[in-house]
C-alpha cells in the first residue's frame, strides 16, 4: 500500500532534475574546456556571416555565458558593409588608407540602406530556396539594426521546458 502511494507521488522524482542540471553543466564544462572548439566555431560563424556582410575579422568576439535555462553565445561582430554591393546602392567612396570600418557609419549617417531585394540578387541564385531568402532577410535586418547578436544555444534534444 505504502509502495503504491510513493510510486504515485514520486513519478516526477529528482532524476529528471539531475539529468537537466548535468546537461547544462557538461555543456558549459565542454565550452570552457575546449578553446579549440570555440575558435573553430568563431571561424565558421564569421565565414557564414561574411557571405552576406563584410565584417571586421580582427575585432570579432565570441563568448559563452551560462544563463537560467541555457548557455548563451554572445557574438560581437562589427559590420563594415554589405558584401558585393551594387554600385548604384552604396558606392564605396572612402579614401585610400581610411579604415573600412567607417563604412558602417556612412550608412547610418546618410540613412542610406541597401534594399533587401538587392541582397537576394547577390546571393548565389542556384542554391537559393525560399527559406534561404527569408533567412537572409532576417539576418540582414538584424545585422543592419545592430552589430551585436546574442543568440541562445539550445542543445537539439533539450526539452523546451521543465516536465
Amino acid at each position, binding site marked *: 500500500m505504502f509502495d503504491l502511494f510513493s510510486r504515485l507521488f*514520486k*513519478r516526477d522524482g529528482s*532524476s*529528471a532534475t539531475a*539529468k537537466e542540471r*548535468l546537461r547544462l553543466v*557538461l555543456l558549459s564544462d565542454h565550452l570552457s574546456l575546449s578553446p579549440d572548439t570555440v575558435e573553430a566555431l568563431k571561424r565558421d560563424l564569421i565565414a557564414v556571416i561574411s557571405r552576406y556582410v563584410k565584417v571586421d575579422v580582427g575585432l570579432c568576439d565570441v563568448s559563452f555565458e551560462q544563463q537560467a535555462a541555457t548557455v548563451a553565445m554572445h557574438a560581437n561582430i562589427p559590420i563594415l558593409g554589405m558584401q558585393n554591393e551594387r554600385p548604384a546602392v552604396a558606392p564605396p567612396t572612402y579614401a585610400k588608407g581610411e579604415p573600412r570600418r567607417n563604412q558602417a557609419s556612412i550608412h547610418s549617417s546618410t540613412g542610406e540602406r541597401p534594399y533587401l531585394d538587392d541582397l537576394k540578387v547577390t546571393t548565389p541564385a542556384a542554391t537559393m530556396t525560399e527559406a534561404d531568402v527569408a533567412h537572409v532577410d532576417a539576418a540582414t535586418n538584424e545585422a543592419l539594426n545592430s552589430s551585436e547578436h546574442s543568440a541562445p544555444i539550445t542543445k537539439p534534444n533539450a526539452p523546451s521546458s521543465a516536465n
Partner: protein
Amino acid sequence: MSGRRIVVTSGKGGVGKTTTTANLGAALAKRGRKVALVDADIGLRNLDLVLGVEKRIVFDLIEVVEGRCQLRQALIRDKRIENLWILPAAQTRDKDSITEAQFLRLTTDLAEFHDFVIIDCPAGIEHGFRNAVAGSQEAIVVTTPEVSAIRDADRVIGKIHERKLPMRLVINRIRPDMVKSGEMMSVEDVCEILSAELLGIVPDDEEVIDTTNRGEPIVLDSTKRLAAIYDKMARRLEGEIVEFTRLDEPSLLNRLLAGWRG
C-alpha cells in the same frame, strides 16, 4: 603474445574502480584467460585487500620499476582462480615514484605473457591517472548514477578521447527501485548524457561488501546474484554480444513477497 592493456578509471573516488577491476579480472580468468591486475593507486593500495592477497605481498610495482626485483617475483598468484595474477602498488611511496614511460614499459612487459592487463587507476586526473592511462590501450570508465560522479566521468572521458583510446562505460550501484520511482537516473539517461557505449550495469548490492570483507571475488561463487553480471561483462569485453540483465524484473521471490505484502 601481446595481451590487451585496459585501464579502469572514473575521475571521482569511491565509485567502484577497484571492485570492477577485481571482479571483471576474476571473471575473465575464470573463463580461462590469463589475467594480470595492476594496482596503480600508489600510496593507497587496495586491490590486494579486495582480492584477499594482502598477506602474500613481498615486492611491489615500484620495486620492479627500480630494478630491485624481477617482474615475476612481484606478481601474486591467486590461489582460488587459476590464471589470475596481482601486481600490488607500493603503499609507502608517492604517486610520482614512477613515470609514464616506466608505467608503459611495465604494462607492455606484462602483456607479453597475459591475455589481459587490467589497471586499477587512482581517483583524480593527475599524475596517477596519467600513468595508468599511459600504460593502456583501452579504457573502462566506471560511474554511479549521481551528478558528481557523472560530471567527473565526463571529464575523464574527454581526457581519454584526447589520447584516442577506445572507451566503454560501467554504471555501478544502480538501484532499480529508485530508478523506477524517478529518484535515480536510469542507465539510458547516463549513457545519453555521456554518449558512451555500455560495457556493464551493476546493481547496488550488499554482496559486494560481503565478498570484499572476505577478500573473495564474486564470480568464485556462481550462486551469487552479481556473478552472472560480471561474467557477462567479461564476455562483452571479449567481443561477444550479450544482452544486459534486466534489473527491473522482479524475481519470483520478490513477486511472492509483494503479493504477501498486499
